[in-house]
């Protein structure tokens, strides 16, 4: 197919179009027995006109088509340790470290050090667990928000919210990120926060249960910070401060054993 050479320069030229030629139709045009009429055509999704293109698309998805891909980039680096104070995990790839960091250190509650998979869940946790105003307000209005992003429903109690999650959103009844906060007496020792898998249940349904979940077996939060710190956000900011005041580690025997 030979294209006029000027076409290529037209492509890089200015937008616009030439003055259209005058249109002058004769009523005999397309009159019976002829039937041509200029018209735009639309095809619905399942039309057979799309068969070839759809097949090509799926061949691509199934990776039968050869593709131009670059070399993999997953370099191994010399071993390094997580820089978060108190965490001694060692890594030899940046991807592994990234995932570790985001899982354990990114969305961490500054009160109780629990880690959450998302900012959304962390915010809800802080509100429901560490905000005394929340407790007061929740006596008068529905304050427990649905955990599903995009759902604006609120509930009187944590149980009502769970029922909603199960019935409306088909969530599992034992959804890990929705454990009710049980009221406790004076603060119990921090050491109990790290609980081994065995202690949580013989069938191992909550394995490795430290940090991630809002779990009732865990200790009450650390002693509340005094005075004016209430005013500030209690979410650990994404620009972390390593060093004073940001201690993350726990001084439990279990932890020491793991990171020998």
């Amino acid at each position, binding site marked *: *197919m030979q*294209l*006029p050479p000027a076409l*290529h320069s037209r*492509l890089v030229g200015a937008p*616009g*179009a*030439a003055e*259209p*030629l005058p249109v*002058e*139709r*004769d009523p*005999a*045009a*397309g009159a019976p*027995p*002829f039937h*041509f009429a*200029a018209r735009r055509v*639309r095809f*619905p*999704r399942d039309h057979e006109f799309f068969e*070839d*293109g759809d*097949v*090509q*698309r*799926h061949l*691509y998805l*199934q*990776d039968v088509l050869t*593709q*131009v*891909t*670059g*070399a*993999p980039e*997953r370099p191994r680096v010399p071993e390094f340790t997580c820089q978060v104070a108190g965490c001694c995990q060692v890594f030899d790839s940046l991807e*592994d470290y*990234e*995932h*570790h960091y985001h*899982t*354990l250190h*990114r969305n961490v509650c500054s009160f109780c050090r629990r880690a959450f*998979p*998302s900012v959304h869940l962390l915010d809800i946790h802080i509100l429901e667990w560490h905000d005394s105003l929340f407790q007061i307000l929740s006596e008068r209005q529905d304050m427990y928000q649905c*955990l599903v*992003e*995009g*759902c604006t429903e609120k509930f009187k109690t944590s149980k009502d919210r769970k029922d909603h999650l199960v019935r409306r959103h088909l969530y*599992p009844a034992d*959804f890990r990120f929705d454990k009710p906060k049980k009221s406790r007496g004076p603060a119990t020792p921090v050491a109990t926060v790290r609980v081994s*898998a065995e202690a949580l249940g013989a069938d*191992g*349904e909550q394995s*490795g*249960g430290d940090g991630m979940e809002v779990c009732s077996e865990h200790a009450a939060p650390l002693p509340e910070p005094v005075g004016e710190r209430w005013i500030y956000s209690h979410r650990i900011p994404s620009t972390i401060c390593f060093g004073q005041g940001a201690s993350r580690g726990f001084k439990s025997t279990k932890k020491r*054993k793991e990171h020998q």
Partner: protein
Amino acid sequence: MWSGRQGRLRPVGCVVEELRCRRREREAALRKARREQQLVSKRLLRDDVLEEVEGGCVAKILGEAEIQQFLRLAQRGTEEKERERALVSLRRGLQHPETQQTFIWLEGSIRTLVGLLTSSQALLQLEAARCLHELSHSEQSAVAEACLPATSYLLTYLSGHSSDFIELCLYTLGNLIVESEAVRRQLLPQGIVPALAACIQSPHLTVLEALGYALSQLLQAKEAPEMIIPSVLGSILPQHILRLLQPGPKLNLGVAVEFAWCLHYIICSQVNNALLIYHGGLSTLGLLLLDMAAAVQRTEDAGLELLACPVLRCLSNLLTEAAVEVGGGPNQLDDERVVAALFILLQFFLQKQPSLLPEGLWLLNNLTANSSSFCTSLLSMDLIEPLLQLLPVSNVVSVLVLTVLCNVAEKGPAYCQHLWPGPLLPCLMGMLASSDTEGVGQSLELLQLLFLYRPEAVEAFLQQSGLQVLEKHQEEAQLQDRVHALQKTALHR
């Protein structure tokens, strides 16, 4: 233009002929599946580098006892490395359908896996997710559906930050989405649309490509027009999809391909295309077309046909919307460079992917049908002759070419003046000699217009033995009325 990334399953150690044969078989199977409305494909994300690091030996099928042992170790092992290794072994075993079957029927296995998925040990989490991914890819419904207890967590993790993990969750969800309507009936109330929308502002290309894939699977569902597309259109997804299709240095081909297909499924479902036009869909797609043609000119066109197909479809279908009829303004496509770009792409298709010629010509029809401007452009840019060169490609192509030519001719004498004298008439004579009824019929339509608006062409027609050629078809039921009418016109000029 492809951003190099790993993660696709590549056939290892196959001979070229084997590959071609396999491809032909796959293609036939896909055509059959499409006709039965069962066109479903899953993606497997397997990290080849990881396989190398793990020793590269073929994973063996695992039995019940072995699976249980690995699960126990992963769950309760005292040493972290030991737990990880156990899960890795399980994951490699799960590459086998037999292991998958054994696994899902083992009591408590999925529960344990979900527990590991939600553990705070990041690497265990990642490996558990990889196990689920293998299961999600299975062709056995029972195996894929065994992953259902994990979906609420997979969706929750989409709001996280670890790009590799999110990518894995997305491909897993994408595989599950196509599994069955039953699966989707769980995923929709669990909030899959808002969860996907949350990912679209990610800066990571790998996440975006995975997101595009998962979304395209969701939009391709049979029930999508009623159950899924309205909520997608109501979210922030449409404007971000269009943003990701904007040409420029940031355009990534892999990402664009996925979202172009998303857009196609939305548009051809005809739910609310006016919204897409409102968000500048026409101009974005038009500019993208120009960009693709420019890439062809620079011969940076590897894989371009994968993007061109959905873009052509989107443009063609959008042009039929009522919102576009009202003239002028940003809702219109009136830049003749689009026509130039389309022809450059048609030439590219002719060499690389002739099956795309009909789709390209469909767009050309929709551009020219109601537009004196674009018909004039075809003439002023000397594109009639290249168009005629496509006539011999196939019956479908020739009918479309003739339709476009009719679009030009029906605009009147000023247009037909440029159609004759020229190569058009000889080509028409050639077409009339064929036995393809539809092609001949369309040629007769064009002849009528030509005779009407350019009577001088009749004489030339007669001199080229036009009447004898017409006689060939005068007994044909679908053609005879028109043949007789033309014979009459020619004789009574």
